[in-house]
């Protein structure tokens, strides 16, 4: 069995007195998409910086593809792709020149830049200066840049944040294509829908600690509440909402009572979302 793509062992980082990342440990298997979820300031970016060799951990270690990141950052960086949350492209250069620069830095001589641009929906715009691109186009170009070296591990930080649905969908499609190619994807996101849809597993981080790590399905099973939500007509004719939690002994009787004695207008079953679970685990939202 191949070694995991990412192994974090007791990773810790401090900014002065603030413990930003507190002894976290986890592994990510090859070809897996791991969603890394948490509110602002939870330690997500610091963890990614340690995993990508941008920061040296205060203690603990990270192994990527079996290589110690702190000891051999450049060896690791040659095999990863990183897409940052904020655009950080050379705006005075064209899209093609941006990709060519990074292809040269990775010594990726055989990369087909036009094909990369086509994959992210920027064909025909590669010659334009990046400064003239929209936010969505810049984000797509950053994804293309992260792919120039056909990385074994792809780190994506909020890749669809603030994008129109078409751009966001184009990026999600590329993420799934990369997974099919065999790449491991470490996806940092606030978007629960995206995490639920794309990720094999999700990790919740809060105050520098991982508070849960499992598949979205298992997390919902473990922490979520299934329920039925009904809109009924009240005594004065106004609409009232009633919620009946499922999976309890008294649930069938409560539903029977609702249907027999109330005028039901709408009836929906509801599943817990990852956000509900996060709030339940941490007492705070993801925003």
């Amino acid at each position: 069995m191949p070694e995991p793509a990412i192994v974090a062992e007791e990773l810790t980082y401090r900014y002065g007195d603030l413990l930003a990342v507190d002894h976290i440990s986890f592994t990510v298997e090859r070809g897996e998409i791991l969603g890394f979820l948490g509110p602002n300031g939870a330690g997500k970016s610091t963890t990614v910086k340690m995993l990508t060799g941008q920061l040296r951990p205060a203690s603990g270690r990270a192994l990527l593809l079996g290589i110690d990141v702190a000891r051999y950052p450049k060896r690791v960086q040659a095999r990863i792709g990183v897409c940052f949350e904020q655009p950080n492209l050379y705006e005075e250069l064209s899209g093609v020149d941006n990709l060519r620069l990074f292809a040269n830095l990775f010594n990726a001589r055989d990369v087909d830049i036009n094909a990369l641009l086509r994959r992210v929906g920027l064909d025909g715009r590669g010659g334009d200066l990046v400064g003239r691109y929209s936010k969505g186009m810049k984000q797509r170009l950053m994804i293309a840049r992260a792919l120039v070296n056909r990385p074994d591990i792809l780190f994506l930080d909020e890749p669809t944040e603030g994008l129109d649905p078409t751009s966001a969908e184009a990026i999600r499609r590329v993420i799934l294509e990369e997974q099919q190619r065999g790449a491991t994807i470490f996806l940092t996101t606030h978007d629960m829908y995206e995490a639920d849809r794309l990720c094999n597993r999700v990790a919740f981080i809060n105050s520098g600690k991982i508070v849960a790590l499992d598949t979205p399905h298992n997390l919902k099973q473990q922490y979520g509440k299934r329920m039925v939500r009904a809109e009924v007509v009240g005594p004065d004719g106004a609409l009232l909402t009633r919620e009946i939690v499922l999976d309890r002994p008294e649930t069938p009787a409560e539903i029977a009572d609702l249907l027999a004695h109330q005028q039901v207008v709408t009836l929906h079953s509801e599943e817990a979302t990852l956000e509900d679970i996060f709030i339940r685990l941490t007492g705070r939202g993801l925003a």
Partner: protein
Amino acid sequence: MNLRRILALLYREAVQGPKNFIFIFTIVVPLGLSLALGLIFGTFFSGKPRLGIVDAGNSRVTQLAEAMPSLIVRRYASEAELRDATAKGVVDVGLVLAADFDQRVLSAQSGSLTVYVWGESLLRDRVLIGTAIADWLRELAGHEPPVTIETTMLGANNELTWQQRLLPLLVLMTVVFGALMLPASSLVSEKQHRTLSALLVTPATRAEIYLAKGVIGIALSTVTALLVLALNGAWSNQIWLVLLVLFLGAVLSAEFGILLGVLINDINSLFATVKAMGLLLYAPALIALFPIIPQWIAQIFPTFYMVDPVIAIVQRGATLSDIAGHLAVLGVMIVALAGALRVVRERSVGA
């Protein structure tokens, strides 16, 4: 270090550089000032070097001089007239040929030649006339002539012209500003636009990134400084030595620029810092502007060791042995700053 990566980074710097106002400033300001000074002091339109001759014996030297199209030759009736014309700058160099000068040279007797030099004449003109005189004497004698040349400076012979005094400032502006500000501003801009983070998660190392930025600053400022010297009539026949000093000065400035770029996070702070250090950087040139100030004070400032050797070569004809001490100091500063950069680079990795 990987040459391919450094070239890729250099290419980006070169493509993006001309859009950077500091890049333009580095070239335009010193060259523009040189042109302005040339116009003000008239050196652009100075034309050919002017030689005055007093010839009591119809010398062959006079005939050779008058046959030379690249010189303006004026004859004077007496040595007193020639001295007066030279002192007033009517001619750059005055030559006194005795009645029996040719005979003494041809009979291999030792002779002497009196030469007057206008104190404010351009070094270029003096060198041209001096070389020509040596050639004429050789042609007259058929061998190396046994002639002693007695040179007398006339006019403002103890003072430098304003253009000469301003030259250190122009050289410092070009070398220090260009080689320091180009890498510093480029590095700060990469931090502000977060592109440095993108570079640092590739196989490119900090050292490669710094080197590419330094090279562009060094190359541009060295070439511009050579142009500035040429425009100011300070072109030397020891051009390789001048180039070496300019290069070392640019290396020192680039190292300092990179250090500032690593330590400073925004462009406004960078400008404020450079402005605050302006006096330290330009002090040697400012001191040279005012001869009344004791000139040894300039030696306290590090930039003295890059500008003084250049001026010594182009204005005083200094040789490598004359400036070796200054170059050694320059070398020590380069090594010390390289060490400081290494320490700062190591710290940035863990930050």
